């Protein structure tokens, strides 16, 4: 019976080529966008170079003051002072990777301006994060203590500044008229990991603001626990420490949170001191996805109804010769799954092409998207959702068709 359904499904697809094109285009285009978006989300959310220890880590990046009586607030990144004087005292924090926000500096190569984004980091930054050194090594506590003008640069910066030289260790790179001695070259980091990507990494002791005695500043940190099991304890200890922070003038509340990776992002986008915005962001993404899927689905439902009603004579004949309404619903759902499966295959092929093009065009610096099994799994789920959702209603309507009327319709 299934073979017969497949035969007729393919014949129907061939019969109305324009409808088929519209249906397949709708399905494959929507799936392509979903798959590329999923690949992008997967890139952001899955542990990725150089941040592989997410399971043991909490991320601190915002400090918020509130005046609850007047109703105003102040929100910013965190100061180096806060990490050094408060967070470093926590017993559950095994290591802490501190880095500043990226700042831009100008360098000149053959009279051409080169913008170099640099970050200040501490020594443990290189122990918590697993940067791949192509040559040289990271700066150690000694260089930090001496405030040495040393730099770790990215592979991209090496190529842009030094050209095709084999080794650049010991060479100087001049940014904003300051000469830094290159001591290490690391593999590029995707720009999607904005906390870790940079062109040049410098010891924090050469920054101007690390000594500022303030809770707010321009830094963020990863707190690494001994094990995954210790993460809740670390969070608890962090929260207790925050409660004891001295209140700044004019404010009566301080919020600072140590969040898991994704919650840290959502807090920045849609949250505040009291809420990490996770529910809000997930709801918005789900709603958007649903709406995005709903439009082509409604379109497909309409096309399917037209297609099915065109076949009312066939429905009449099948019913006359013994097909029950249930059997017919089953047949039309199978047919629709054949259509969506074809659309899915085209969608997957298109996604591979689009992802290849995105990677080739380097739209987001050093971001390399890939089609993995997770993406494929979600795509298949989307395909089945499409097939069932857009097939069930037309099939149900058709199964209610009166046999005599169906036969007269021809």
């Amino acid at each position, binding site marked *: 019976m299934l073979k*017969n359904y497949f035969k007729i499904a393919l014949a129907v697809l061939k019969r109305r080529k324009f409808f088929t094109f519209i249906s397949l285009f709708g399905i494959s285009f929507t799936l392509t966008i979903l798959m590329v978006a999923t690949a992008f989300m997967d890139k952001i959310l899955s542990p990725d170079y150089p941040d592989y220890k997410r399971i043991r880590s909490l991320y601190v990046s915002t400090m918020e003051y509130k005046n609850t009586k007047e109703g105003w607030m102040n929100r910013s990144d965190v100061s180096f002072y806060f990490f050094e004087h408060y967070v470093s005292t926590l017993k559950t924090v095994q290591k802490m990777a501190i880095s500043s926000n990226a700042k831009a500096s100008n360098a000149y190569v053959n009279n051409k301006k080169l913008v170099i984004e640099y970050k200040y980091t501490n020594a443990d930054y290189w122990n918590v994060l697993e940067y791949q050194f192509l040559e040289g090594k990271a700066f150690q506590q000694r260089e930090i203590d001496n405030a040495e003008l040393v730099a770790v640069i990215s592979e991209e910066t090496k190529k842009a500044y030094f050209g095709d030289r084999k080794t650049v260790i010991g060479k100087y790179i001049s940014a904003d008229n300051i000469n830094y001695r290159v001591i290490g070259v690391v593999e590029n980091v995707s720009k999607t990991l904005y906390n870790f990507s940079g062109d040049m990494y410098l010891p924090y002791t050469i920054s101007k603001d690390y000594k500022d005695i303030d809770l707010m500043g321009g830094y963020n940190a990863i707190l690494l626990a001994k094990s995954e099991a210790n993460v809740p304890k670390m969070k608890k200890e962090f929260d207790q420490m925050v409660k004891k922070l001295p209140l700044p003038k004019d404010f009566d509340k301080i919020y600072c949170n140590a969040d898991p990776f994704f919650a840290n992002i959502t807090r920045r986008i849609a949250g505040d001191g009291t809420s990490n915005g996770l529910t809000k962001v997930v709801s918005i993404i789900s709603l958007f996805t649903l709406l995005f899927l709903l439009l082509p689905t409604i379109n497909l439902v309409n096309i399917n109804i037209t297609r099915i009603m065109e076949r009312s004579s066939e429905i009449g004949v099948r019913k006359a010769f013994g097909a029950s309404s249930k059997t017919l619903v089953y047949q039309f759902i199978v047919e629709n799954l054949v259509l969506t499966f074809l659309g899915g295959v085209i969608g997957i092929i298109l996604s591979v092409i689009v992802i290849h093009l995105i990677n080739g065009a380097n739209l987001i610096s050093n971001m390399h998207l890939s089609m993995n099994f997770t993406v494929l799994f979600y795509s298949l789920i989307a395909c089945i959702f499409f097939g069932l959702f857009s097939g069930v209603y037309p099939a149900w309507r058709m199964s209610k068709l009166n046999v*005599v009327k169906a036969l007269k319709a021809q």
Partner: protein
Amino acid sequence: MIRLQNIEKVYRTDTVETLAINGISLDIAKGEFLSIMGPSGCGKSTLLNIMGLLDEPSKGNIKIDEQDISRFSDQKLAKFRNQKLGFIFQSYHLINDLRVLDNVELPLLYRTSSAKERKVLATAALEKVGLSNRLKHFPTQLSGGQRQRVAIARAIVGNPQIILADEPTGNLDSAMGNEIMDILINLNKNEGTTIVMVTHDESMAHKTHRLVRLFDGSQVQ
């Protein structure tokens, strides 16, 4: 074989009520070849559809093969149609997207038979109507007479006890019509199949065992 008792069929719209069948009672014996005649709109096809369980009467009782089908569920009705009844329509109602063999196999899809069995039975049915050389053709590649023969093969493939034919020769010229009629007569004679045929053609009707005439929804002969 078929017993109709006081059958009425009323079509209702918002404003009009039309009485299509007005209290018809009819007994059709096993192995009988009955024809129904009457002017257009007199209720012939409606009566045939009611006999074929494709339409429900507004009033009255139908018994087929001693079974009262009035309380059958959709599922049971479908199974009953599949096993007991075969249909032949004036405009053939073949599925143009399927080959001749697949069209004929259609009633067997709703039974528990294997693909091999279906093929054997469908080929045999097509042989009976003289179309064993057209198995791989599509209906659009056949003449009107050939298409109706495919439709007959489809109607008999499941070996039903009753065949209901709604103007089977209506779209054919007299030579083709006679050919189809011969097939039906042979089927009735050799296989003992009960046949009820609606027709406009007096000469075709006279070839059957009994003729029933309708006028304005009532039986007049």
